[in-house]
């Protein structure tokens, strides 16, 4: 009974902070835009510089690994390229969150601020970078469509946007949790860094699911696999398993719930931690 009242209190406080974040959405949007701009301010190409370097990595490594894995390049390149771009998008959010709220201390120590808003700023920044990179994805899909017999089914592109939404919401809440823990424990960020690196190799981004003949558990138990599948596969003309949707949607709700509890319980203490 006491636990229920406590939970309800935390949830309400968490939701209040969440609402505050979206009430000042234009602030976070501006700051997110600005973060992208300032990162590449001194280069001529601006944010496109990043797109160009991503493209180079994809072309070079795509070529190399298609040889190593003995895969036709017109199949492997779109597979690897799209997966890699989504991975970059997902991992950089988590890695930035692992710096903790300390990097926003000049805002936090000045006035009351929504911590969800700070995460929103980080999310918007990374989403904008993904938007720049989406031009590469567009080319990769056109490449795939012109060299193999994948049919264009509009429903699948619709599925892509649904998947993208689910992943973005899950990551938003996940980043909040990571940022809170990393603010309290300085060395947790390093641990997150190592985990992110490992997950990259454990997730079918370079390699394909079909190449694993036994111990499918490695794949099925990897939550990131399900997240990346529901955005990548529709683009490549495949329909993700319903299972992946179940798992991704459950993750979205679990992270959302946990983030609200975290927010309710720890929000008031963050300014003492930084």
């Amino acid at each position: 009974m006491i636990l229920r009242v406590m939970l309800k209190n935390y949830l309400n406080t968490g939701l209040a902070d969440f609402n505050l974040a979206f009430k000042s959405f234009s602030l976070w949007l501006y700051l997110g835009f600005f973060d992208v701009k300032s990162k590449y301010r001194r280069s001529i190409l601006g944010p496109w510089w990043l797109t160009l370097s991503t493209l180079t990595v994809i072309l070079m490594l795509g070529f190399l690994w298609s040889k190593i894995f003995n895969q036709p390049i017109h199949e492997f390149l779109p597979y690897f390229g799209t997966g890699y771009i989504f991975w970059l998008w997902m991992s950089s959010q988590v890695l930035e969150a692992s710096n903790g709220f300390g990097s926003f201390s000049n805002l936090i120590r000045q006035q009351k601020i929504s911590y969800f808003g700070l995460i929103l700023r980080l999310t918007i920044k990374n989403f904008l970078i993904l938007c720049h990179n989406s031009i590469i994805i567009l080319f990769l899909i056109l490449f795939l469509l012109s060299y193999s017999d994948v049919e264009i089914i509009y429903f699948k592109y619709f599925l892509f946007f649904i998947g993208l939404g689910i992943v973005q919401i899950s990551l938003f809440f996940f980043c909040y949790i990571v940022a809170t823990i990393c603010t309290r424990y300085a060395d947790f960020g390093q641990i997150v860094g190592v985990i992110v690196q490992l997950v990259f190799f454990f997730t079918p981004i370079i390699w394909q699911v079909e190449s694993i003949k036994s111990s499918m558990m490695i794949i099925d138990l990897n939550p990131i696999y399900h997240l990346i599948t529901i955005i990548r596969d529709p683009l490549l003309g495949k329909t993700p398993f319903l299972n992946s949707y179940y798992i991704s949607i459950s993750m979205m709700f679990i992270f959302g719930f946990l983030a609200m509890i975290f927010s309710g319980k720890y929000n008031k203490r963050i300014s003492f931690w930084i």
Partner: protein
Amino acid sequence: MASIDAKKLSIHIPVFTNHHTSIKKKILRFLGYGVENSGVYTVNALNDFSISLKDGARLGLYGPNGCGKSTLLRALAGVYDPSAGDLFVNGKVASLIDILGGFDHEASGIENIYIKCLLLGLDKSEIDLIKPSIIEFAELGEFINLPIRTYSSGMLMRLGFSIVTAVKADIILMDEWLSVGDEKFIKKAEDRLQKYISQSSIFVIASHNMKLLKSLCTEIYRF
């Protein structure tokens, strides 16, 4: 109607050492290895502070360094949550504790006007409206289009000051009297600040200059 109500307000600030911010050590302790936790040291920055301020209040906080003036201002700004007691603040708060807070050094003066005003709770159209007057008052000339990392500290303060004093607020919190710019600027800044404060309904200033507080405030709280 703005108001501030503090009832037996206390703020305890925990001081973490490396020992406490390590999750590895925490896990080791949990497993029974490693050194015993020495406990987190807390600073009682503010103890049992009570006050009630209504419209028109001009409060001066007087005391030596480290007596809790700034902590109290931060609590009023909503940065620190009460560790004990209650605090109710009604009205739009402008915290002038650090007028450069929120500035981005890679951004131009104009962009920082947007950042700072958005932080102060204005929306885009309102900012467009007051932007020209801010630029005019700051007198930065061509520099307003350059990244603020190229500014001198005096120019930075002038920009921060011009922005903060352009946005109306119900409650103004100030840590020491703001005095910015060169001789010529100080004069007109003084006038602007007086006008800005007179438009607010509650004004709280922390200082250790009794003469200043007496000239500004109707109430003085001694720590």
